[in-house]
């Protein structure tokens, strides 16, 4: 406990810090390690002030500094060839990666996690997660086009999931719908490991003209720093509130501030107005640089802007408009109040800038300027409370080489293959298995979730739920557009983090291609347990390598991503969950491939790719036996690439009328979904020489089921054969039938299937 300091003035200025080098500081409460604190003192040549300590502590946190992951993430850079980079206008290190999609258009996309807040306050946690990722995209100078939300929860039937899931979904809906951004995709996954630690990841994609790319930097001495958007309050300052307490002992009875919750409340309306305001500012070319305020608030925005610029920066913190009384400089710097942005503006443009803000009723305040020094100076009523080299805050945080090792239990899991599990074999057993799978929470329709999301707003959504990827039109004149999909089967990753991550990449890539888009870029959100656990670090290291190597094989670059560690309940880490997002391009969205069959008069069903006896980590092993063991299916990325090229070529030439990739649940699930989405019957004919169970439920990668108009069948199959893609005619579409008939298994009435598929989530979550 600190001794009361007789020399404590109201304000801890740099001068005061010089005078009181021995003052005890609560750096540990702020999450800094002993050696990190020592390093800060070395950098500054004195002890940090309260405000500096607040800044370093948030910016050197795992979340902002990537201190445990940096070493490994470097591998993405090492494996990205110049050829893969050709279309990248901005990559890792920027707010979000940017790719050139042709016709003068650039597209940017990114996923972020908001896991922990969403457990504490599901609605607000998820809402502010959406808000944050949208500001990231906006900070690139892009108009946000669409969002997607990969979500993971505890067991579907668990009482706490009934609290968390509806709240998270309502939060994503409440914020995203109010912003006017169509929600075009995502995931809903259930697993015990997420029970105390749901994963709420949010993706946003935006577009801009290539010449309008705004990178976050503060350059040009004399340029003004303008903070605009919401007022700054005590949101999310959590740990930093210890600085405001009279003693650092955490005694809440003292005169200081109570420890505040780190939950923020979002105001989607304020963000919508902020978006329109920013777009008008970009349009009028009134910003030199811009940065969103997310985690770490002003600490992050000012240090990153200054670090990336060519000069220094001075900020007068007392000018920041506040929402709470008596906030200290440290609190203002660390506040995570939402819906704020920070811009660098030429002095001659300040009046015009302010006029645009007034038009949108957005509060804007000049809080400082770019200086010709190389330090970031923050003042409070004229006194200096921060004087630091900005790069030491923003980019030169600690980097750790955490120990990692393959855990021994990995052998046990691998040895426990699904071969020992009883398999259905009679037609009745197979029929019962199909229905049970379709109705399981794992595979049931997500409509109860997705119908809460506006997928139509702005009128450019061409495909959304439940199709394999979301497709949005970017250019109304040419029809150019993009497709996005996110995927991760974390059960595969658990069995083999390297191959499992390649499978996640393969699935997202395939989902994009199945919609007719050529995949061009990859983003990720790496959700893992504690980096202090060598087993978790091993999963992480393997996952990064799997993703990077996979991207190199596919020839698509990783343009950005996000790492979320410490996802665990007690000692129990979540299943390793590297969510992979893939972006694809369509030169004309009119040639997108939908999922539902029955659009053309006569269609054949063709199964593309090869089916092997692969059940490790499959949906069947889980649903039928609660089993997770063995090894996951083997990915073949060269095959995935070929499949994608064929699907894109077929979409160009109008050879396929519907397509669906095969993933969770295998062929049976894909056939059921294509029939239900198209509201059209079909007959599926299995290969008499192969095991029907394997054909129906295996999750071998690299496969898709396509519907081909009879008139195009020959052309299409010749193309597949010529290019070496295995295919097999697996049935015909039968609009008159009103049922899905699977030969040697039985008939499934569409109504029966629909009731099974659509009934599950409402029964679980309707209040």
């Amino acid at each position, binding site marked *: 406990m600190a001794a009361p300091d007789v020399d404590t003035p109201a304000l801890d200025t740099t001068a005061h810090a010089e005078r009181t080098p021995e003052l005890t500081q609560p750096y540990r409460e702020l999450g800094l390690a002993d050696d990190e604190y020592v390093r800060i003192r070395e950098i500054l040549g004195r002890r940090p002030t309260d405000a500096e300590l607040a800044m370093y502590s948030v910016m050197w946190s795992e979340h902002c500094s990537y201190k445990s992951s940096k070493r490994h993430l470097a591998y993405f850079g090492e494996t990205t060839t110049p050829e893969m980079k050709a279309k990248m206008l901005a990559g890792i290190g920027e707010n979000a990666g940017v790719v050139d999609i042709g016709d003068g258009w650039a597209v940017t996309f990114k996923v972020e996690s908001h896991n922990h807040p969403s457990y504490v306050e599901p609605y607000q946690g998820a809402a502010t997660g959406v808000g944050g990722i949208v500001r990231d995209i906006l900070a690139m100078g892009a108009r946000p086009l669409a969002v997607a939300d990969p979500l993971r929860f505890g067991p579907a039937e668990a009482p706490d999931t009934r609290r968390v899931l*509806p709240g998270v*979904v*309502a939060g994503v*809906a*409440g914020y995203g*719908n*109010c912003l*006017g951004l169509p929600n075009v995709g995502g995931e809903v996954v259930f697993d015990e490991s997420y029970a105390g630690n749901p994963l709420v990841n949010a993706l946003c994609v935006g577009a801009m003209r290539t010449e309008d790319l705004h990178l976050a930097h503060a350059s040009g001495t004399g340029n003004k720093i303008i903070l605009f958007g919401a007022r700054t309050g005590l949101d999310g300052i959590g740990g930093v509130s210890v600085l405001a307490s009279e003693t650092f002992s955490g005694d809440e009875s003292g005169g200081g501030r109570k420890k505040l919750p780190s939950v923020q409340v979002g*105001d*989607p*309306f*304020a963000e*919508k*107005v902020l978006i329109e305001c920013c777009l008008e500012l970009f349009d009028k070319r009134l910003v030199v640089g811009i940065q969103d305020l997310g985690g770490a608030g002003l600490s992050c925005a000012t240090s990153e802007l200054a670090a990336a610029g060519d000069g220094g920066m001075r900020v007068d913190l007392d000018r920041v408009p506040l929402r709470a009384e008596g906030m200290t400089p440290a609190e203002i710097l660390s506040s995570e109040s939402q819906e704020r942005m920070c811009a660098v503006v030429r002095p001659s443009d300040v009046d015009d800038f302010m006029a645009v803000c007034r038009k*949108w*009723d957005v509060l804007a305040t000049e809080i400082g300027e770019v200086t010709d020094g190389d330090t970031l100076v923050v003042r409070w009523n004229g006194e200096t409370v921060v004087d630091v080299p900005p790069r030491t805050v923003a980019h030169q945080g600690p980097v750790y080489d955490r120990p990692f090792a393959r855990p021994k239990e990995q052998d046990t899991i691998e040895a426990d293959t699904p071969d020992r599990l009883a398999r259905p074999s009679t037609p009745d057993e197979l029929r019962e298995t199909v229905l049970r799978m379709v109705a399981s929470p794992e595979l049931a329709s997500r409509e109860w979730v*997705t*119908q*809460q*999301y*506006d*997928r*139509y*707003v*702005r*009128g*450019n*959504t*061409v495909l959304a739920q439940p199709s394999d990827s979301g497709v949005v*039109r970017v250019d109304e004149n040419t029809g150019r557009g993009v497709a996005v999909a996110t995927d991760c089967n974390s059960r595969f990753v658990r069995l083999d983090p390297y191959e499992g991550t390649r499978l996640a990449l393969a699935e997202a890539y395939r989902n994009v291609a199945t919609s007719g888009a050529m995949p061009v870029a990859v983003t990720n959100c790496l959700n893992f347990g504690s980096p202090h656990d060598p087993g978790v670090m091993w999963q992480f290291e393997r996952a990064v390598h799997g993703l990077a190597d996979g991207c190199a094989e596919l020839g698509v670059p990783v343009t950005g991503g996000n790492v979320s560690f410490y996802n665990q309940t007690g000692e129990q880490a979540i299943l390793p969950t590297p969510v992979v997002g893939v972006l694809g391009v369509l030169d004309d*969205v*009119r040639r997108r491939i939908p999922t539902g069959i029955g659009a053309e008069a006569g269609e054949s069903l063709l199964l593309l790719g090869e089916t092997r006896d692969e059940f490790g980590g499959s949906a069947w092993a889980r649903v039928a036996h609660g089993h997770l063991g063995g090894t996951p299916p083997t990915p073949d990325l060269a095959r995935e690439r070929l499949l994608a090229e064929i699907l894109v070529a077929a979409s160009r030439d109008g050879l396929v009328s519907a397509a669906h990739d095969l993933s969770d649940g295998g062929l049976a699930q894909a056939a059921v979904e294509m029939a239900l989405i198209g509201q059209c019957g079909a007959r599926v004919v299995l290969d008499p020489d192969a095991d029907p169970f394997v054909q129906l439920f295996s999750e071998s990668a690299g496969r898709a089921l396509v519907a081909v108009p009879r008139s195009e069948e020959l052309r299409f199959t010749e193309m597949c054969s010529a290019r070496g893609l295995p295919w097999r005619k697996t049935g015909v579409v039968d609009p008159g039938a009103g049922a899905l008939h699977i030969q040697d298994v039985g008939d499934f009435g569409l109504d029966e299937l629909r009731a099974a598929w659509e009934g599950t989530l409402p029964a679980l979550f*309707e*209040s």
Partner: protein
Amino acid sequence: MSPRIGVITFPGTLDDVDACRAVTYSGAEAVSLWHGDADLRGVDAVIVPGGFSYGDYLRCGAIARFAPVMGSVVEAAGRGMPVLGICNGFQILCEAGLLPGALVRNEKLHFVCRDQWLRVENTTSAWSTRYEPGAEILVPLKSGEGGYVADEATLDELEGEGRVVFRYVDGNPNGSRRDIAGIRSADGRVLGLMPHPEHAIDALTGPSDDGLGVFYSALDALADAPAPVG
């Protein structure tokens, strides 16, 4: 000269771009109107589009109805100018007293986005003449507070006077009284509905192009009886 149809933007309006697109598709000229400006810029008809005006805080449409532009809209409607309120626009028109009743939270309490079948019950309003009576159309519905309520006497009056223009078929998505999806004013010039015809103008981006009829109807109405200039 093609008619000019104004589309209002409030802070928080979302579907103004879509309404403008629908107006353009139908062959009219779309004119953007700003909430803070009472000037209707000489338009022949006005659309109050969907979205979350002022965040829908307090109550949907409650704050927007006091915007300067709404004063002019109420006045123009009094002179017979065709006015269409879609979703949030419908809520605003009810709050402003141009249409009776109110819209309340969906029965199941969550936002619903789905392709919705509607039956056209009345084809005499300025925004529905292009439909066959009894026609069924497929249009997106996307709202959290879309339940139409009014007292029994008002509901009876609306039914009796043929002022229920659109009704939900194939399931009531939000608990609206008597499955009401859209109603018109007594003179037929003002129409409010929760579903979004402006999102059903092209099968590429919507479930159908059934919504175009709403906009073509307005062109007919303006050709037959141009709104008096004020």
